[in-house]
């Protein structure tokens, strides 16, 4: 399925933030050694969702190309699984987190690029979150290295 309108993109962004926040909340309960970091990710997800929604609702206008900015943004490319094996160790969970973050980062980056110059402020918010997800990948990689 293609995300072809701003409304669809914003809804998908909300969904990925919610889904990954739940994943990190579940991880925090199970992996005490990563609890603080996972909870911090879950909290930041809410802020990300707010940031993107605020940008969209703040500038959405009948004059902007909200229905025609996005082309080739396919949902399937950015779907991720959050179910994990109860027996999985922290390194496996961190690898899984990295894969999730990679997909989310790519989604935000691509959405930001596609709407560049067509949707005021929205691309900036999308790219900002893409940047945050990228930082998160570095954090996860550092954590993973420490567990080795």
């Amino acid at each position: 399925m293609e995300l072809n309108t701003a409304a669809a993109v914003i809804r998908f962004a909300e969904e990925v933030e919610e889904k990954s926040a739940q994943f990190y909340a579940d991880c925090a309960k199970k992996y005490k050694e990563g609890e603080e970091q996972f909870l911090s990710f879950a909290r930041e997800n809410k802020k990300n969702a707010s940031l993107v929604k605020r940008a969209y609702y703040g500038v959405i206008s009948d004059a902007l190309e909200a229905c025609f900015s996005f082309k080739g943004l396919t949902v399937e490319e950015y779907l991720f699984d959050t179910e994990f094996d109860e027996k999985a160790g922290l390194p496996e969970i961190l690898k899984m987190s990295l894969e999730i973050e990679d997909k989310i980062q790519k989604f935000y980056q691509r959405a930001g690029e596609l709407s560049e110059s067509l949707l005021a402020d929205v691309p900036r918010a999308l790219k900002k979150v893409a940047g945050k997800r990228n930082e998160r990948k570095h954090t996860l990689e550092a954590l993973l290295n420490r567990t080795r």
Partner: protein
Amino acid sequence: MSVERLKNFIEGEWVDSESKEYGEVRNPAWDRLLCQVPMSTREEVDRAVQAAKNAFPEWRNTPPVTRARYLHGLRGLLEENFDELSRVQTTEHGKTIDESRGETRRGIEMVEVATGIPSLMQGYNLEDIATDIDEYCIYQPLGVFGHIAPFNFPFMVPLWYLPFAIATGNTFIVKPSPRDPMSQVELFKLLDEAGIPPGVVNLVHGAADVANSLLEHPDIKGMTFVGSTPVGKIIYRKCGETGKRVIAQCGAKNFLVILPDVDLDSTIPSLMTSFFGNTGQRCLSGANAVVVGDDGRFYKRFVDEFVGAASKIRVGDGLDESVQMGPLQNADSKKRVIAFIEKGIEEGAEVLLDGRKLNLVGDVSETCFLNPTVFGNVTPSMTIGKEEIFGPVASIMRAKDLDEVTEMIHGNPYGNAASIFTSSGKMARKFQHDVMCGNIGINIGIVAPMAFFPFSGMKDSFFGTLHGQGRDAIRFFTESKIIIQRWF
């Protein structure tokens, strides 16, 4: 199951109409009855005018800063109800949810600008126009104003006027379009919740009879109108006869001009928005796409990409977030647009994409739907090249240079908007300088002025002197009074 009958809002109360005549409000995507709207009586208009007249003295004496606080309250309520307001617009009009949210945002921006009334309404003065004599100019409200709303932006258009009218101390009556009046009902619920005193804002449903009653009423100081040019001309004349101020924002035939140096990848989405956004039902919609120059390869590429993009537009229920274009607002509009398409074929235009062949998302009713239509080889003298279609139909034309484009635009009776798409500052500058249209876009498909600028318009697209929005609106809703003072 009983169907809701909408009520009028007069003197701070929701009241049943005494009318026996009701119209139907239908969801155009599913062709479902939503509610019934009364065709209110002349007596009900009189009551609303009387209520507005009674409320005026106290409201005009309410300090501007206090009036602004009511609008701040309203703004908060509009933000709180943003999505619900947007959904109502899509439900009764058919536009996509993105478009409705855009409309809601635009409406809120009007309220935001009007909250600046303590600054916006200030007059000016000069000491010592002669020795020991000073002169002041102050702006004062006039009384009762009315508004006749169109169906294409059921929420936003009345807000082009209402916040400015009441912020300046006037009282106001809205007659919504009987085709989609629910958005105004929702707005008035929030105006009521914001605590605006009884009679300051009033809502009277109806059609031409209510409009005529407002136009002819001796206690109304001015009228605002958005709609077709033939009706706008009548309103302008009637307001002249009864000594009313008038803003009549009317029809359009907007030319979008494409130069071969354009960034086509960015331009195509902009053109899709302009021609097919709101299903082509706006006075700022693109109507004629004029490709400039004799570069045949560019022309072919442009046509291929334009038609390709138009053919991929997902058409369906606007509440489906994957839908990019909704239905026309009603079945009569669809018939009207089809008649234009048939006329285009009859007059020799080439059908590049026929929107009569429906390709719809989901199991919606076909009653009000058309897919995008694109014509090639259109000339400015063809019916589809010169008359307002108000639907999802694009006509592609060619011109040898910018001077020929300007001639084309000036040969058309309308003068609402025109846009140029180019990478050349020189060409853009020439275009904005030469073209006689009220709103000029440079790499912008929909030239919708922000709330703090006037919504301009020229020729048969506008009748009046001052425009809606911005400083023009402040001047329209106020009388300037001069005071010259000397103290002995």
